[in-house]
């Protein structure tokens, strides 16, 4: 994953001198996850900026750079620290096009890792995409693997509007040639006709494994949709799938209430109500604050929970 993101940054910085990288430890150190490794050596310290430790000013100064016409790519070390710049994202980053009635746009990218599995302290493993999905004017992509992460980051950097990119650790072979995936489109990761499983980010693997179990043990051909872009949501792909399958289960790592699952379920109800054979189920983390990584497994959706929800939906 890290290598794929690094490749996307290299590729886009070579393409466009307006692309800058900004964040804590992104320069000499190459980022705490090494996503920006060697960038400063290649492009210099004016383009790959080791900023002081202040999330609000990282996003705030990047907004200023974007207003001037540059394309800053900011790194926030963990999504749990992004609340210290939330006001800059919500108040300004997402609103400048509207506020200036099109005179200014904010072609910037905010990258940050999210989600569990890192065995670290509080604020290092939460899943908080629901806050950003609710902000008009902002786009949010959550790649499920290194290959689409590279292609989505390239698309995000080229996008004229602000894009937030959340990513997690994962491994995958990535081809040499560069790719770009359009923002705003989901992909059918696996075709099927018995039930639609909707997932994104790290939960895609869980959904695919659950689909394997359901095929092997229940003989059910489950369709798996990888959202890739959480906001704006690709409702058409969801509705088309559920019109075919009649059943849907949504999986996400964020807490359930008011999470993306609610919006996805409502969108399916709007577009495919007459095709539905069963209520739409959500398999999510519980509505509790950070639980500590010793209890993480019980909180984050896993294959057995997704399989159980799918079986209930299939049997309804």
């Amino acid at each position, binding site marked *: 994953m890290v290598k794929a993101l690094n490749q996307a940054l290299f590729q886009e910085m070579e393409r466009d001198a307006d692309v*800058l990288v900004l964040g804590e430890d992104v320069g000499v150190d190459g980022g705490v996850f090494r996503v920006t490794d060697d960038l400063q050596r290649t492009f210099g310290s*004016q*383009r790959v900026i080791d*900023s*002081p430790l*202040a999330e*609000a*000013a990282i*996003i*705030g*100064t*990047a*907004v*200023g*750079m*974007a*207003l*001037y*016409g*540059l394309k*800053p790519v900011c790194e926030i070390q963990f999504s749990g620290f992004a609340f210290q710049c939330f*006001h*800059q994202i919500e*108040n*300004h980053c997402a609103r400048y*096009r*509207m*506020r*200036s*009635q*099109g*005179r*200014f*746009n904010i072609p910037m990218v905010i990258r940050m890792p999210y989600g569990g599995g890192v065995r670290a302290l509080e604020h290092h493993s939460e899943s908080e995409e629901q806050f950003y999905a609710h902000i*008009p*004017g902002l*786009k949010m992509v959550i790649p499920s693997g290194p290959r689409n992460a590279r292609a989505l980051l390239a698309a995000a950097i080229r*996008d*004229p*509007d602000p894009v937030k990119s959340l990513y997690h650790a994962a491994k995958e072979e990535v081809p040499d040639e560069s790719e770009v995936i359009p923002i*705003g489109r989901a992909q059918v990761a696996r075709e099927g006709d018995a039930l639609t499983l909707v997932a994104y980010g790290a939960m895609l693997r869980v959904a695919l494994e659950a689909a394997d179990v359901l095929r092997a043990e229940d003989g059910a051909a489950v369709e798996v949709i990888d959202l890739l872009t959480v906001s*704006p*949501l690709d*409702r*058409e792909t969801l509705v088309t799938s559920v019109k075919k399958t009649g059943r849907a289960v949504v999986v996400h790592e964020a807490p359930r209430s008011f999470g993306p699952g609610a919006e996805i379920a409502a969108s399916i109800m709007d577009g495919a109500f007459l095709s539905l054979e069963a209520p739409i189920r959500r398999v999510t983390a519980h509505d509790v604050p950070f639980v500590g990584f010793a209890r993480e497994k019980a909180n984050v959706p896993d294959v057995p929970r997704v399989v159980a929800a799918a079986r209930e939906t299939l049997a309804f």
Partner: protein
Amino acid sequence: MPRIALEPRFQVEYLSILDSDGNLDTALEPKLADMDLRSLYRAMLLGRRLDERMVRLQRQGRIGTFAPTKGQEAAQMGSVFSLRPTDWMVPSFRETAAMIWRGWPIEKLLLFFAGHLEGGQPAPEQRDLPITIPVATQLPHAVGLAYAAQYRGDDVVVMAYFGDGATSEGDFHEALNFAGVWHVPVVFVCQNNQWAISVPLKKQTHSRTIAQKALAYGLPGIQVDGNDVFAVYAAAREAVERARAGDGPTLIECVTYRLGVHTTADDPTKYRSEAEVAMWEQKDPLTRFRAYLEKRNLLEEGLEQRVDDEIAEAIRRFEAMPPANPLTMFDHVYAELPPDLRAQRDEMAARENTAAARPDETSTHQPGATPMRGQRLTRR
């Protein structure tokens, strides 16, 4: 081991050139052409007269809530006067006089305060940010603009405005810190008007001055008599020249006073005395500048009337503007409208068409401001 003074260089200056009694320090008096002096006075007068007119427009429900500038004309005009059109100006929300100087048409500002976002759209070549309302959050933008200008190698200075209350916000400190570390061409102009709504300066900070806060970030800071247009201009010109020469940012604290309300929704009699206001009225920036110009025989005959006519003409243009088309709320969310947002727009268009087909019913988009409590709504 001994204790040694590591930073004996700290020093904060106070600058005053033309005081409220009319005393002029001729050695420090900036060399301004007669035409410039007249322009400055005219802009300050326009700011004052428009401000008074806008308060009445608000009371009549013809515009919404706004933050008056009365008393701060010298702080705004003395500083903004030192900029070139190619420089950038980053306002807060009380910089009406300075914004007009930078080229915002009066009718556009009125439109903005009447609830139309079109009023906040800078002209295509205008290097001004629109009004920013969350306190101090515009300051990192100014630093980013200055970084970008430096990155591109452009000859550009950025001037950013804020008040005394803003200096308690994290964004103020982060912006000064980043500006210092990056050594970018930005001038921070604090209009210390003594009151952040109801909180006086002594409850805002325990520092003796706001200017000294710059020193902690390795930048020069200066305090000036903010009601003395010469002192403000001299300090601003010096800071702008320093920035232009590549010598980094400056913080200027203009000691001034908000003679009016915080916003038109505020009642200052609850928290400050009339005696205090009367004391500051004696230091009115317009009075002393006018006396100076009179002495030098530079006052223009009939200027008040011409300024009032210009304002009246702008109000006529503002009130002749067409009502807002609600469908345009979808025009500037993204470069391209996502499918779901397009569907929401179509839904609204269908509703508007239905409403238009029934002219006896009140349309959803009548112009005019939302009335404040105790205020009548007058339709434009």
